[in-house]
């Protein structure tokens, strides 16, 4: 079984009749094991609904979901999953250590050493005896992540895991996510608004909009072939005439939309025409640009 999460025509609507609001359309998605999978989309796109449906927190209006090969979403399969959905949900009156104990009880886990190790791993060992209500947002995020990691999950579902984290925390989170996947074989599904982070950490992504899947694939595939060549040259007007409709001005240069293997020929052509080239730089397409163009708001 190589699929972590599969959905079949999965849909969710809230309300009834004419007032029904579709949070998720008929979604067909297959998320393979062994990678970091990003779920992207603007607010209200259906990301959290998808994750809640996957965890059995809400019931589908249509279609179905299979989690780690199981279509019956119960504690038997959920204990193989760690999850952190939306804002960290913690008991304000419990310390981090007591929070771990509570979730260990709930999961049928009796391994105090594991609880300590997890607190150490998420950087809360020094604050383990402080009550959660005194924690900053970043610390709460770490504690919720620790609770999700407690049972050594095969699959980790993280909804906006970098919310509230400072840049160092975001870097740590990215490192942790990659370590879990690359060294420990955990599969991670995460949703995030930080597209730059998603591009850095995810192997595949799905982009949702208005509850529909609008793009899906490997991050490298989505951003490749959509790059451009930035050229700064003199005289620029002459260069622009040679480049023609393939180029558009940007700053003090021109961005040329061509394939990467056509670049040497263009450089030769410009040089042969007596143009001085000061800079020729291949610009990789960012996931953010892909996202914005997919949303219909891009360049």
């Amino acid at each position: 079984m190589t699929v972590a999460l599969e959905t079949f025509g999965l849909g969710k609507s809230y309300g009834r009749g004419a007032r029904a609001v579709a949070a998720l359309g008929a979604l067909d998605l297959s998320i393979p094991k062994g990678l970091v999978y990003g779920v992207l989309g603007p607010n209200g796109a259906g990301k959290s609904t998808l994750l809640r449906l996957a965890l059995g927190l809400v019931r589908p209006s249509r279609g179905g979901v299979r989690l780690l090969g199981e279509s019956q979403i119960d504690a038997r399969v959920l204990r193989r999953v760690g999850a952190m959905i939306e804002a960290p949900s913690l008991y304000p009156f419990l310390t981090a250590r007591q929070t771990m104990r509570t979730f260990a009880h709930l999961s049928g886990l009796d391994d105090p050493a594991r609880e300590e190790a997890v607190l150490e791993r998420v950087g809360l060992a020094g604050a383990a005896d402080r009550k959660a209500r005194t924690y900053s947002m970043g610390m709460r995020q770490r504690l919720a992540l620790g609770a999700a990691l407690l049972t050594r999950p095969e699959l980790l579902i993280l909804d906006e895991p970098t919310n509230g984290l400072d840049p160092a925390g975001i870097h740590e989170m990215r490192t942790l996510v990659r370590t879990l996947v690359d060294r420990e074989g955990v599969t991670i599904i995460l949703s995030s608004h930080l597209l730059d982070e998603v591009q850095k950490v995810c192997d595949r992504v799905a982009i949702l909009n208005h509850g529909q899947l609008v793009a899906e694939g490997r991050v490298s595939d989505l951003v490749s072939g959509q790059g451009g060549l930035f050229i700064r040259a003199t005289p620029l007007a002459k260069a622009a005439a040679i480049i023609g409709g393939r180029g558009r001005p940007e700053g003090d240069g021109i961005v040329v939309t061509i394939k990467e293997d056509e670049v040497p020929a263009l450089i030769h052509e410009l040089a042969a025409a007596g143009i001085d080239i000061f800079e020729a730089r291949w610009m990789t397409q960012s996931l953010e640009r892909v996202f914005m163009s997919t949303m219909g708001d891009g360049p």
Partner: protein
Amino acid sequence: MIANALGAELYKLSRNTWSLFWAFGFMPVFALASGLLEQAYTHFTAGDLIPYASPLWESFSGFATFSVSIFQICGIAGAAIIFAGEYRWETWRAMLTRNDRLPVMLAKLLTFALAITVSLVLCALARFIVGLVDAALTHDASWPRADAGGIALGHLLAFTATFMQMMVTASFVMLVSVITRTMTAGIVATLLVLFACEIASIRGNAGGDPIWVLFPNIAAEGIRQAGRATMGDPDTLLSAFAMPGAAALVMWFVLLTTAALTLFLRQDLSRE
């Protein structure tokens, strides 16, 4: 699964110290403190109007501490913390990825049952201590006319009555909490309903029509009065209501719990 959930609930409640005290610890302390103050005032200031003490009747009355709506407020708050806490702290989404809904809710019910049992026993013990202090002050004590078995059965019936009454209350809190997803509604709505029941059932305290046992307060009072009769008190108008009262309390508990569980099992936790 239910053992895991119960372990987690008990652990969580035991660490929620202030809530635990006000919900389940305050009434025993209040029963002890108010009883001792009353005895001291009566003995040293007002004079002993009743020149003897009744420790076992005191402990019997201790089991009835939660019988009136205003005194149930602590237990209602405790039930709201247990049943509505996950909505308030938005922790369902963390809990229900570790355990199933049914065992989690049943564990909450068991946790409340255990906590209220301890609280009731402590209330009875507190009142027994008050009775002993009274005996020491008045140098005299009276004892129920029943034998040890009758006294034990009487206490058991008093405990059972209040325990069942509180379980009905808790199941109502559970239902309101699930429907409204708020702790405040669980407390306020329950208190208002109990108060309304007491007002509406005043005439039921005089006995008569068995229809009154549909009111949980009358049903529980019937069982308590059967306990009093077992301990030798002849003044028990409602003791004939004991069996139908017990049946009524069980019926209410089953109905309310089933409704709450059915709703909860089907509930979308898109928000808590």
